[in-house]
């Protein structure tokens, strides 16, 4: 693929996945508006690696999410950079959300938060972001078999932690 084709391919990939990437980051970053900076950094890194972007749509999507995940890990480790290119997006994300979730949603979120980092990440990718377990394994850089065993263990822990009827149904 020629450079110009690589660039058009990456731009198409980014535009097709930008909203999902933002959602992925929004759900994991506090304050949520900081997702704008991490997203922009994700795009910048993707452009630096344009020649390495997988040619397929699915592979390209996984590649972008893997970059976003790395940026997220870096963001958690260091002070976040405020990027000028993300100002307007940041302003949009600073708008308060009306719906913060039901009580049961908060309880489940808390239970997910109590899982180990490895277990939690798989559960979130599968149930919050809609990835298959194989895709989640790809994004997190682990084998499918490792992902299966971790996911099974995570599910078992969640069953124990949430071994009651959904709180909303009790009211």
């Amino acid at each position, binding site marked *: 693929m020629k450079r110009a084709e690589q660039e058009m391919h990456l*731009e198409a990939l980014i535009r*097709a996945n930008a909203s999902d990437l*933002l959602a992925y980051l929004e759900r994991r970053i506090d304050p949520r508006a900081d997702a704008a900076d991490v997203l*922009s950094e994700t*795009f910048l890194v993707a452009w630096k690696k344009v020649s390495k972007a997988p040619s397929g749509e699915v592979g390209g999507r996984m590649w972008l999410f893997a970059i976003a995940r790395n940026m997220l890990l870096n963001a958690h480790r260091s002070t976040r950079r405020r990027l000028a*290119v993300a100002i307007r997006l940041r302003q949009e994300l600073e708008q308060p959300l009306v719906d913060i979730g039901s009580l049961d949603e908060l309880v489940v*979120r808390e239970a997910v938060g109590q899982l180990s980092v490895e277990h939690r990440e798989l559960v979130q990718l599968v*149930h919050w972001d809609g990835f298959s377990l194989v895709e989640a394994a790809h994004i997190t850089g682990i084998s499918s078999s490792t992902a299966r065993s971790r996911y099974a263990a995570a599910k078992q822990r969640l*069953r124990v932690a949430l071994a009651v009827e959904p709180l909303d149904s009790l009211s």
Partner: protein
Amino acid sequence: MDDETLFARLAASAPPTSPRGDRLRAALDEAVTATRPARQRRNRWLLGGVGLSVALLGGATAAFASEPLLDWLGFAPDQSLSHTNSDGDFCVAGMAVRPDGVEDDDASFLAAKKVLLGIDFDTLEIPDNVRDNYAYSAEAAAAKAAWIAEHNAAHPEATLQPALSDPESSMLIDTAYQIIVADVASEGLDTSHFTLEAGGTCAEVVR
């Protein structure tokens, strides 16, 4: 608790995200565009609706043409050009040499900027290797349009809508870039220390 119940509760527990309204989509699109790196061939084109009147046809100087460019280019151009294309539309373009991974006082970058400032676009001849470049051929334009149509059909939620470009202006900018690279190289300097960012616009003639 069965899988179905567990999965439903997990899915419902996903933290909310901002509603994907027009404002957020526009801001997201802006972030996507702004993070795309400036490169020599990245020409940002708009067509029409920029307030250039037909009265400017034939009478605009390069200096005059730079004024409206400043309003929308997003950068102060080092140089600008203006001409009337084969469709009779008045087109202007602005260019700026940018340091690429080096400091502002880098010798290669400064040399490139100096060369650009010295180019007279009113008399600049487009060489055959640029004019005959596949990128400016009808075949290339058709292939690009087909590729974009295919992408847009597959991704109606994230369509690409590149503005039309003016090939003549692009060819002049490419020619300038070739001159810059050749001159900088002739001084024994590194030609990878700068990029040429350019953008242009055309005002359609009212017929």
